[in-house]
């Protein structure tokens, strides 16, 4: 547990870090980024909270059950999107041409249209969810384990 200034600043900062991380996840098909990178940014925000408040206080907010459900849901959404194209082939990009995320971008340099890419942005969201849950669980488990405690159920 660090001083009051650090705790207050961390409380304010986590919001901006979260928004930036979600921006990096969502725009993975246009700018550098994507699922893992954005997830790692959000987890760095969680680590800021972990350092400012002690892991003992944080373990009531990050419970093991919630993190496991988030992680498995992210992986299952990814797998279901892969299986959804199984009418043709596994991982077939079935959303090309459809209204959501289906526009085809012009070749060459262009300003970047968000609603392109097929199911790649949806997979970015699924991977981002999984990475946030997984890496937070790893960091919290190691921080608590080094103290001799366990994660809350």
């Amino acid at each position, binding site marked *: 547990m660090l001083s009051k200034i650090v705790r207050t600043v961390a409380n304010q900062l986590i919001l901006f870090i979260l928004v930036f991380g979600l921006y990096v996840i969502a725009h993975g098909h246009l700018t550098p980024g994507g699922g893992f990178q954005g997830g790692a940014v959000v987890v760095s925000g969680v680590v800021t909270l972990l350092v400012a408040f002690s892991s003992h206080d944080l373990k009531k907010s990050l419970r093991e059950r919630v993190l496991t459900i988030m992680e*498995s849901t992210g992986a299952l959404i990814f797998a279901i999107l892969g299986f959804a194209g199984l009418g043709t082939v596994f*991982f077939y990009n079935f959303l090309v041409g459809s209204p959501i995320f289906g526009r085809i971008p012009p070749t060459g340099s262009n300003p970047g249209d968000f609603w392109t890419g097929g199911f790649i942005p949806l997979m970015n969201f699924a991977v981002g969810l999984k990475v946030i849950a997984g890496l937070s669980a790893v960091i919290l488990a190691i921080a608590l384990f080094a103290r001799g405690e366990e994660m809350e159920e």
Partner: protein
Amino acid sequence: MDFLVTHAPILIVALPLVAAFVIPLISIGWAGDRGRNIFSLAIFAFIAFLVAILVQNVHAVGIRVYTFGATAPELALPHGYMVPVRIIFEVDGMSIFMGLVITTVALASLIYSLHFMKGQTGQARFYALMMLLYAGMMGLAFTGDMFNMFVFLEIASIAGAALAAYRTNMADAIEGGFKYIVISAVSALLVLFAIGILYAQYNVLSIAAIAHYMQYTTLDMIALALLAIAFVMKLAGVPLHMWAPDTYTVAPAGTTPMILAASYTSMYALYRVTFTLYGGHINTTAIGWVVIIVGVLSMFIGVMMAVHQTDIKRMMAYHAISQGGYMLLGVGVGLAVISDPVALASYGRDAMNGGVFHIINHVFYKALLFMTAEAIFFRIGTRDTNKMGGLARNMKWTAAFYVIGALAISGIPPFNGFASKLLIYESVLRFNPILSVIAMFVSLVTLASFAKVFYSAFTGPEMPAYREVREVPKSMIIGMSILAVCIIFFGLFPGLVVDNIVAPATNALINHTAYVNAVMGAVP
């Protein structure tokens, strides 16, 4: 049914991955332990069925290519393309042979673990890790892409190390798992370095495309050396075998056969690189002799270190290293004579048949032996042979399975070890008699060490501490008997097995142009 046959390669690898992430949800949710066990068994039975129909399909139709994200599964090279740009799975005779080995052992291990794991914590993660390890091994066997090989190799390594260190209350388990993950991480980074070198030269990642465009430059030789060192590290060949006794000893019951299968899947990857990726370019006599030397060293040093062990599982782990040497010897002789048609027809093909047949035989009887050792540990809590005695009175099934496994590993008819070892002895004798004599001597010492453990552990006067020891539970006996039935069947009808399962695998290894043409088609 047609749908299942067309999409079988990807379903076999993707369904365990999905199951691995559904199992924690089921454990938290409504079904609990019972539901999770039933779910794992049901999914795994379905996957075993898919492997069976894929075996039949590959032997009937030939090499199966599956492209991800194309408009049809076989369309690796669409109209006008010069290189395959998508991720492909390519299943030929050798890949589906490894798939058969891994699936049978995984089925037996899963049934064996059902009761063994009762009373342990974190069981949801145990089954999820087993599914991940299975998916990693099958992906490594089916892949047609070099970078996918790296990814699946790492998946199998991480899942295997986490399973080996599962019993975190015992200090030596953590040490065994730590050694495994360090060796696997170093070897996977070497593989990645070699993939970088190959990509920088040829700008493609598929195995068939690299084989098509390869000119054998100095950088390619460096890549081959790195790949060979990395895979020999993973398959516990001497002199890079130090991790194997520790890791095989401490892994809990159903996981040692799976980690063993992961080592032999790395051996398959070594064969894929030397026979297919560099096929036709390398100096096969020199590389063949290197493989033979590693095999002979593994045989000899493995069995010499095994003779004076007192820990029963550690002894079996050293024997696993030694038997791996037999496989390397058989296939190495085949590789050394592959460019000489007369020698290949007369004894080269038999040597390779023996080496490949020995893979499936060894995985079966070694898994059975490890399961009996863990059954003893389950009942009496120790692995030290000096403390055991007279167990055959109470544990009749376990003793019977141990005898079957010990006779099979020593090469006594009518068990399956005899068939594959005879093939290896006869063909290696015509190549170089000294190697054959060394192989027979190693076999003798193997029999001696297993007989010693049998006399000290199972026969002899009954010890008062073990008077109330009962037989192991039903699920463990069923798991062991699946393997025992396969051992006896393969021993009684070896010709049937060699013609139907082993010969297509050997043909697939020798005939590397078929692998390349299945993807590259008519590109000049």
